[in-house]
């Protein structure tokens, strides 16, 4: 840690002069490190950067058959400038769906982000290995259900005539329309997302906790720190890099997540609270195969995500001295 911080602060001072020279010196000393990068960069260039050629579809009226093949058609389709974006921004529903997206994903971050961290820490407190493993397996299984299945399960349990509502009525309450009541719908999304993803994210934090040096715990105990102090002063700082990484990405993708879930869970009576950008564009584009419109939306989301990630990373670098790059 210490060494790294020193190096980071040292870079800007010496950076300008002879940077290229020093690169070659380093390269000559550590050629293997650069060799190691090749496989990853190869896949990155072929499967991620090459397809980026298609981003221009956002500024064209893409027609699959304009050229000899779909790739050739990209450059041969008509250039329309910002038209696809204007169609998106000028639609009457745009502000509604943007705010829905922000609220739903904001609620998810607020209520769901801390849970896997807590789960991982708690799991770590269970000493009996078999119990710990069983619990961990149990909470991770839901991740393997597709949203279609999850909707089926939730509906049969929470539907207006399902077992939960029967119990509420039996206890003298009123039926709760979880799926069609605008007051409940967002909570339904948050809850079902939590149900599916907590276990999966817990696994990631478990790995981070595994990396915390045991010596630090021993030292803390010798200093007389109880469990809570150990968690606060050893575990949390130890997994902070992972927490920061996860949070930056979550914030970055705030406009860009939840499509599949919402598409399956929502219905026309809750559009006012549940319709997000992607579901809205999906409905507008039904049956049209409008690749340009979806590329434009994707590009808009990507730019927003990139700006947010850079911003969040800057904040993190300034306050927590942690940076993704």
């Amino acid at each position: 840690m210490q060494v790294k911080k020193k190096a980071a602060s040292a870079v800007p001072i010496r950076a300008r002069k002879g940077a290229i020279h020093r690169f070659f010196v380093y390269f000559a000393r550590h050629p293997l490190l650069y060799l190691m990068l090749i496989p990853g960069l190869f896949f990155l260039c072929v499967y991620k950067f090459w397809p980026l050629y298609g981003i221009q579809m956002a500024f064209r009226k893409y027609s699959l058959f304009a050229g000899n093949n779909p790739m050739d058609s990209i450059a041969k389709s008509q250039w329309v400038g910002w038209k696809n974006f204007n169609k998106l921004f000028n639609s009457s529903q745009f502000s509604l769906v943007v705010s829905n997206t922000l609220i739903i994903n904001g609620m998810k971050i607020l209520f769901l982000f801390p849970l896997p961290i807590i789960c991982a820490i708690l799991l770590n407190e269970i000493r009996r290995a078999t119990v710990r493993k069983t619990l961990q397996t149990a909470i991770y299984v839901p991740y393997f259900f597709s949203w279609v299945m999850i909707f089926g399960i939730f509906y049969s349990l929470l539907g207006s005539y399902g077992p939960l509502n029967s119990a509420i009525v039996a206890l003298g309450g009123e039926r709760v329309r979880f799926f069609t009541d605008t007051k409940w719908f967002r909570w339904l999304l948050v809850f079902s997302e939590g149900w599916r993803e907590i276990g999966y994210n817990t696994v990631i934090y478990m790995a981070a906790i595994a990396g915390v040096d045991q010596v630090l715990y021993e030292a803390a105990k010798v200093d007389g720190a109880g469990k809570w102090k150990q968690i606060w002063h050893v575990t949390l700082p130890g997994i902070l890099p992972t927490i920061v990484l996860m949070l930056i990405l979550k914030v970055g993708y705030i406009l860009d997540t939840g499509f599949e879930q919402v598409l399956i869970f929502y219905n026309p009576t809750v559009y006012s609270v549940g319709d997000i950008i992607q579901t809205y564009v999906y409905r507008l584009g039904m049956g049209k195969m409008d690749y340009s419109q979806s590329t434009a939306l994707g590009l808009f989301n990507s730019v927003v995500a990139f700006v947010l990630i850079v911003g969040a990373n800057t904040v993190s670098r300034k306050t927590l001295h942690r940076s993704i790059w």
Partner: protein
Amino acid sequence: MKKLVSLLLIAVLALGMCAAASAELLGPGNVTLKRLSYTCPWDPNNDYMVPIMKEATGYDVDFYALPSNDADNKLMLEVGGGADYDIVTVNINQWRMLLAAGALMPITDLLNTYGQDILAGNTDEVWATLTQDGDIYGMPYMYPHSQEITSFLVCRKDLLNAAGITELPKTISGFYDMLVALKNFYGDQYIILTGPLVAASEGNDSWRIPKCITSAFGIYSDWMVEDGKVIYASESPKFVEMMNFFNKLYTEGLIDVDWAVNSESAVQEKFVSGKAIICCGSRALVNFTTAAMIDQLHISMDDLCYINPLYGDDGVCTYQESEAINQVSCVLRNAKHPEDAINWINTKVQNQLFINIGVEGVHFTYDEVGQISPINPIFANERGDSYYYIDATNAADYQFQWPSRIRKSAGQWHAFNATTITNPDLSIFVKNYFKFMPASEAYATNNTALYSSLQDLILQMMAGVKTEADLATFANDFANNDGEEVRAELQAYYDSLAK
């Protein structure tokens, strides 16, 4: 410009095709055909139908299925990327997209040489639909029964009788009175009416409110013709009245409060478990629910009765004919064996009875009036899957053969009999003017999205989330999403029919 490009493209493709077309009929056993069709629930190459077709035609065929999601995307990407399927069997919208993209091979000559039985099996009117600039581009599989009541209400007669209802309502107000009587008698013990019936695939027949009720308001389709003018359902003079009616049912607790959420299986579940008294029905639903209810609720088939399309209090009842093209089989320009593809389909048409229905005495018998009666369960076990492998048919023969597929299920036959066969009033049927409309661009591009927003509006007005006041916004969105262009195309086609 666009036209020029597509002309050039077609010219280039046509040149390539000439080379392919010089190939000759290789005959069964010398070639393996490639057939692509819609999503298949089982492994299409590992089905009992495969050896049956091989026996009848001699051809080896590799079957490919589109995925159940994003089928359009996948189809167009594959074809755009130069796929070489010999036969592609798709719905009419997908066929229109392929045709517009210039991906199809004209098959008039091939049909004349190898496909005489296919040609003879369908009417000129149908062939005209599949013709562009004098060339045929597809082979039809016609919907086998034109005047079928596809939407009805299934009722628990035992519960109706217990509440003192002995006569089924014929009119919309009679229907409302019955629902109220049931509510007064049973209170919250039962869901009075559950629905809707949304088919798993988003076809244009999956209305969110049953057509057997909208019939009383003169509404039978998303696009209708009134006094020679093409109108959208939301513009119909009785649309608001209809939605007010449904809103009244919703607010008075006469219908399932989860109407907007219910999936097909949720509706089934409520009816089979005895939680609901009346259920929006279709053949596919009763096929399954009837037997399950007999098992679970210990009722008999006679405890079920069916409400046919309702009449308005003014005597109006309109219901659209179901006749249309179910699927189209076509040949891609890149196909390697177009001659054998047509020959294979033609041989299948020649052996239509054997392949689709089976052997007399083994899979079926002829009943006293000469109709085909299936032998169960061997009919279902050895011919149940045949529908997936149908390409073109001899339409008249299939109209006679097809009802046997309904008869394999007693529950389904019970309902079909009560609604379609014994329904005396054929005057309610409205011709589907647009059933044979040729490919048109605005309709193919925009209608799915328009249809989906109409269904959304219906559910929203039913639940009271939107009201009459929101119709102006709807009309506005309708225009912004090219609704008027679609209307213009339909109007032009309708006018051409009238001539």
